[in-house]
């Protein structure tokens, strides 16, 4: 079992985390005609919005209750009501997702009763728009936790009763936040190849995959419809991807008795096989030829790629499930996970990460630990560490603001795993340093081989 430790210090330096409400908004951006609303000061929204825009290069619908000092002292219910009504009138969304922030949570208001009052009082005006509450103070959790809470709240929209009729060729997919738009498209196509209709919640491939609509739309466009979410109780099965999707999957099981299978990762041959076998079983159909061919391509990629992975020391900093996915991917090709840093220490998946120790910390801890590694794997904020350490950086997760096309990169199933192998192998090949006579001289100063010697960054 992997040890999970947190680093004791007062100043977080170069945060690895993005905030919990951002994670919740992220999920809501995968719902059609939705409007995430942060209950907090305008800066809470503005910072998250700008970060989303830098990552996705898209307009992002995200609003604020604009809590000022007076509202903070007197209570924010009026601001919340005004914001909801304004959004309803101006943008006519199908869903408003209220995500709380540290500001209103610190004050300790009873937000669920505030919202219940508003919904009761304004039932007529709000007809046709669902309003859900996701409690996501910034002083807790990170993207993963926020995403889980938002998806769980969305599941709450499903009628609380066992459905009368099951649709046998329909499945639900609850993807973790770390899957890309391209991954979701691929999941859907794969299900369709078995004649299965998949409701993916949330589905950022509908909204954040970079398209050009022919008119101005103030809300999200594309993604899972509220109506489809309500129908999820009638599906034959639920597939949850990532440990952090266990809570919503379980909730869905409680509400509508839909059984679920949880996949900790879909970026390793064995787990993908299990997933494909599940689809075959649910659909009663044989595995289509094109999927079998893709599996064979992955086998070949493993064969061609493994030369570049064997013995490599990899440093990864990512949210728990994403860390697990990446670490199992790398170690599955013979690399060593020398450094594993994560955002929060609660997830049970951390104990399964194939390394000796997972540290809950920031990118400065990561930088201190990663000296001597062959590859850094984290989001764009790792660029400073990569520069100082002179180690190549593979950008993964969120935010990625200095590279284009992240959403179109596949990272799951046979194709995604194949593509990842090539990406990594190519990074290594691009950074080859041919040996010099001094490097190979048997009498060279052999010094200490990198065993976790910390190196202070140059400033």
């Amino acid at each position, binding site marked *: 079992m992997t040890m999970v430790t947190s680093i004791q210090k007062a100043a977080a330096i170069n945060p690895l985390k993005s*905030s919990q409400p951002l994670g919740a908004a992220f999920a809501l951006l995968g719902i059609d005609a939705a409007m995430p609303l942060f209950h907090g000061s305008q800066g809470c929204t503005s910072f998250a919005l700008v970060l989303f825009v830098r990552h996705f290069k898209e307009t992002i619908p995200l609003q*604020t209750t604009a809590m000022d000092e007076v509202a903070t002292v007197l209570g924010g219910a009026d601001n919340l009501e005004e914001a909801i009504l304004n959004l309803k009138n101006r943008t006519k969304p199908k869903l408003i997702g209220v995500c709380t922030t540290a500001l209103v949570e610190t004050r300790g208001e009873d937000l669920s009763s505030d919202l219940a009052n508003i919904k009761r009082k304004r039932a007529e005006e709000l007809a046709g728009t669902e309003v859900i509450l996701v409690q996501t103070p910034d002083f807790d959790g990170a993207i993963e936790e926020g995403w889980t809470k938002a998806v769980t709240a969305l599941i709450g929209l499903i009628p609380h009763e066992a459905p009368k009729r099951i649709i046998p060729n329909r499945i639900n997919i609850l993807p973790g936040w770390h899957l890309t738009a391209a991954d979701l498209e691929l999941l859907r196509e794969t299900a369709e190849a078995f004649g299965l209709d998949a409701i993916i919640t949330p589905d950022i491939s509908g909204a954040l995959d970079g398209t050009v609509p022919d008119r101005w739309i103030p809300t999200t466009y594309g993604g899972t419809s509220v109506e489809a979410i309500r129908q999820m109780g009638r599906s034959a099965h639920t597939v949850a991807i990532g440990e952090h999707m266990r809570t919503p999957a379980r909730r869905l099981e409680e509400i509508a008795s839909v059984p679920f299978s949880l996949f900790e990762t879909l970026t390793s041959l064995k787990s993908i096989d299990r997933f494909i076998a599940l689809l075959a079983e649910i659909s009663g159909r044989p595995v289509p030829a094109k999927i079998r061919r893709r599996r064979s391509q992955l086998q070949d990629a493993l064969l061609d790629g493994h030369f570049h992975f064997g013995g490599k020391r990899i440093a990864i900093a990512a949210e728990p499930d994403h860390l697990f996915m990446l670490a199992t991917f790398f170690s599955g090709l013979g690399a060593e996970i020398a450094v594993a840093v994560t955002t929060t220490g609660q997830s049970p998946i951390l104990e399964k990460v194939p390394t000796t120790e997972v540290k809950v910390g920031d990118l400065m801890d990561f930088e201190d630990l990663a000296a001597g590694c062959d590859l850094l794997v984290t989001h764009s904020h790792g660029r400073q560490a990569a520069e100082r350490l002179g180690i190549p950086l593979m950008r993964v997760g969120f935010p990625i603001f200095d590279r284009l096309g992240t959403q179109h990169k596949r990272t799951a199933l046979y194709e995604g795993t194949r593509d990842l192998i090539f990406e990594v192998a190519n990074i290594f090949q691009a950074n080859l340093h041919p040996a010099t006579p001094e490097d190979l001289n048997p009498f060279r100063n052999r010094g200490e081989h990198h065993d976790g010697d910390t190196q202070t960054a140059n400033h």
Partner: protein
Amino acid sequence: MLKAKIQDIFNEPGCDKNVAKGDMERKKGCSKRLTPGAAAGGCAFDGAKIVLQPITDVAHLIHGPLACEGNSWDNRGAGSSGSNLWRTSFTTDLTELDIVMGHGEKKLYKAIREIKDRFAPPAIFVYSTCVTALVGDDIEAVCRHAAQKFGLAVVPVNAPGFVGSKNLGNKLAGEALLDHVIGTVEPDDVSPTDINILGEFNLSGEFWMVKPLFERLGIRIRACIPGDARYLDVAAAHTARATMMECSTALINLARKMQERWGIPFFEGSFYGISDTSDALRQTARLLVGRGAESDLIERTEALIAEQEARAWAGINAYRPLLEGKRVLLNTGGVKSWSVVSALMEIGMEIVSTSVKKSTAEDKERIKELLKDDHHMFDAMAPRDLYKMLADNKADIMLSGGRTQFIALKAKMPWLDINQERIFPYAGYDGMVELVKRIALSIHNPIWEQVREPAPWDDNGHLIGRAAAPEPELVEDHDDHFLAHHRKKFVGAEASDMAEC
């Protein structure tokens, strides 16, 4: 205390908008209450950080829960010719336990010590946020205590997000510099041609396009605040002989109070546009000579201006054939650089519309004169309307900030960033040539023709201009004969037969 400070800022005599107000109105301050559910823009903390963070060798420590810093660090492209410490992010990242147990102040103090021990910066700036202000953490006391204990400048920046807008935060940042930084260091190399520049952010390094012009004239920049600034230079800024203030709404209080306190005269200027740049050099020289610099400075300045202007115009005129008659939509908070507009008009571009949201009455008069039609001024345009205007092809390019970028792009309209996220430097003489070049490159990029070309099928996927084909019969893939027959239809056909390429 913060309240009094904010009142004081709202009572800014240097602000012409404020001076035009009545007593009652002035007291209300200049930030309008935001509409919940229909608000945009950053908070006061954001504004304070924007103004101070480019001071390159300072450790900027944000005291609050994660989001304030975690969602926003390393997001601005200011250039540094020295330390990169400003790009390292520091936050106390308060947890629920810290807040509930009231551990905030203690954690802050420890964080200051950790940063001092590891990075040994000349100063640490400590920013309060909504949550730490709400729970009543006294960052001023912690900073004072830490400063004494560690013998280090520890500067409190008291601008929690919920007190107001980004602009208010800009000004609170200026107050923090006045209260704790400027005047705390006496340099031993004061000269009669030292100046300060306030409100220059050195985005994309653009201040480096201008700084050599001053140096050519023997003028030294004592402190450029905040772009590429060092803490010690800012601390010695009170010894300069004159101040140029850019981006007036951000730091007017700082400029005026430096004049009051240390008698440093200031002028408002800009490095955007040819005549503005010249004017900035001219006014600097005039102020310095007025305060005892050699009087030949004025002639030398004129000579430099003549030389540089001629070169810039030659550079810009090369683009005239590409830009003459092209229509520009300006959509920024308020165009302060009239010389940018006039330079664009000079080479035959037409300003079809401009926002006047942040403009003063005087500004509006100037716009009217330039545009000859005030129908083209708008206060703020809803995204939907802006989109429509662009989609209806009422302009050839939009110049704006990042916030409206995707409105233009989704309307398939050329767009150029002229705000803080831009990646090209536009200051000074060379900067204007660069801007004109970028506009020409945007408008004439071959993608526009491609993206505007509609697909050769309709919304249902039927090819346009062909009779709707009957549903094809089911093709059994083992029926080789059938397939061969159907494929034969396309033998000899080329891609260009299918659609115009």
